[in-house]
């Protein structure tokens, strides 16, 4: 599904503040893997996600998605396969646009945005039905600007937006880092539900070791730009929370 081969990324090459964010990393992620990535700050987790999404391009190595070489493709070209949820709720949605307009764009993630009006009543109904699934009472506020909602509501909607169009891979970069515990739980549960229901391949970065233990079917521990631990299916299930806490103590 996703294949990274000998990927390296160095920031500020040749300068005093040179950082080797990803160091000769090779990783294969299969379809329907739900990979949880943990690691200290600066271990390269976000860089890894950005390399897969195409927000930054690698210095060396190659990246493949579903057999396509995407190494030199930009983020807006990789959106064909990838939906994203960002750490900052503001990044995943457009605050001045209505909920409906945000969903319209999400519904066209893999399509060209054309010169016709797509926010018709049929589409409105479709969005309303989707949002009702969240049970947050937002389905009657479609015309409200996204910016009037709370961070938790926006993150939950961003998750929902990812499945408005054909979606196979979803990248979640600390989606709950900016949320209160209740909203965080709701967002994590929604993510889990969608990933399982839509058979998505997912990569989740988190600093919350409880979440890392509870969610996903694969666990990766990163340090200094490399994968140092990789637990698949049963091996992840057999990990206990205290194992995880030990890695970081």
């Amino acid at each position: 599904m996703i294949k990274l081969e000998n990927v390296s990324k160095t920031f500020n090459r040749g300068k005093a503040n040179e950082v080797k964010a990803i160091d000769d990393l090779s990783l294969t992620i299969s379809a329907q893997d739900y990979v949880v990535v943990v690691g200290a700050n600066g271990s390269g987790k976000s860089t890894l996600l950005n390399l897969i999404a195409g927000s930054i391009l690698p210095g060396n190595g190659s990246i493949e998605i579903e057999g396509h070489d995407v190494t030199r493709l930009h983020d807006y070209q990789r959106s064909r396969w990838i939906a994203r949820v960002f750490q900052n709720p503001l990044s995943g949605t457009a605050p001045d646009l209505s909920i409906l307009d945000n969903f319209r764009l999400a519904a066209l993630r893999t399509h060209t945005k054309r010169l016709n009006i797509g926010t018709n009543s049929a589409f409105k109904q479709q969005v309303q039905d989707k949002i009702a699934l969240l049970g947050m009472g937002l389905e009657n506020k479609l015309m409200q600007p996204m910016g009037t909602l709370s961070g938790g509501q926006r993150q939950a909607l961003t998750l929902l937006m990812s499945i408005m169009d054909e979606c196979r891979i979803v990248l979640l970069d600390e989606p709950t880092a900016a949320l209160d515990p209740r909203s965080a739980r709701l967002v994590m549960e929604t993510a889990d539900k969608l990933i399982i229901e839509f058979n998505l391949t997912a990569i989740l970065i988190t600093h919350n070791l409880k979440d890392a233990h509870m969610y996903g079917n694969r666990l990766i521990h990163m340090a200094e730009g490399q994968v140092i631990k990789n637990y698949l299916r049963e091996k992840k299930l057999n990990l206990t929370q205290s194992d995880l806490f030990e890695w970081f103590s």
Partner: protein
Amino acid sequence: MDFYLTALLQGLCFSGIALGIYISMKIFNIPDITTDGSYALGGIVTGVMLTHTYPLYISIIAVLLAGGLAGAITGLIHTRLKINALLAGILVMTALYSVNLTIAGRSNLPLIGTASIFSIVNITSDVNINTFFVLLIIVVALVSLIGYLLKTDFGIAMRATGNSETMIRALGVNTDRMKIIGLALANSLTALSGFLITQQQGYADISMGVGIVIIGLGSVIIGETLIGWLRISSVWGSLLLVLAGTIVFQLVLAITLAIGVNPNLLKLVTAVLVLLIVSLPRLSFKSHD
């Protein structure tokens, strides 16, 4: 009364600039000041085309393309070379001065006995009334077109580009391309104002664009203030209030002149007026502290 009618006509002529600035500044969040250059470019191209007796419809296409090209160049410099938008605009604006002078061949192009878009309508014997109707048709057409555009899927993507770039890139939009298109559109609207003003005043002048960007900015800021007061969120409402801003701005300037302010001070008055509009909300907040 004629005095205020002229101000109204002028305001309608400037609606292209106001809508252009609204698109670059409010929709794309890019401070674009190519405006001075592309407005004069529009005027000069109009002058040259009409004095060479090209038909109006070809002239108007040429004006729109010229303005669009100027904006696209600013956009290319800004996105591809990663140069600050203000600087990119200043560079293109400066370069356009020479371009305009070269196209015109001299600094002033009087239009005598040439075709004019304002003589298409002939309802009354009063030239100003006829002009008013022509402008009304043009402005209604412009607002309808842009309002429609902003409601299409493409238009929503335009609005998102200025609002949340990370989001819209993740949703498959090449934001660099989008910004170039946006700046091209904004500057062809600006050039259209140059086209109208040139025919309204009967000449094109190489320095007609000096300080014109402030008219667009002032109009958009008045429009924004009105949008805030009236809590308008619809696309059409916002566009109409920006137009209202353009007309209010010209009327205020007309009143200033009518009460006897020296016309030499017009640009100073304009600048102070814009400063006042920008700072008024803040000043009034302070008194509530």
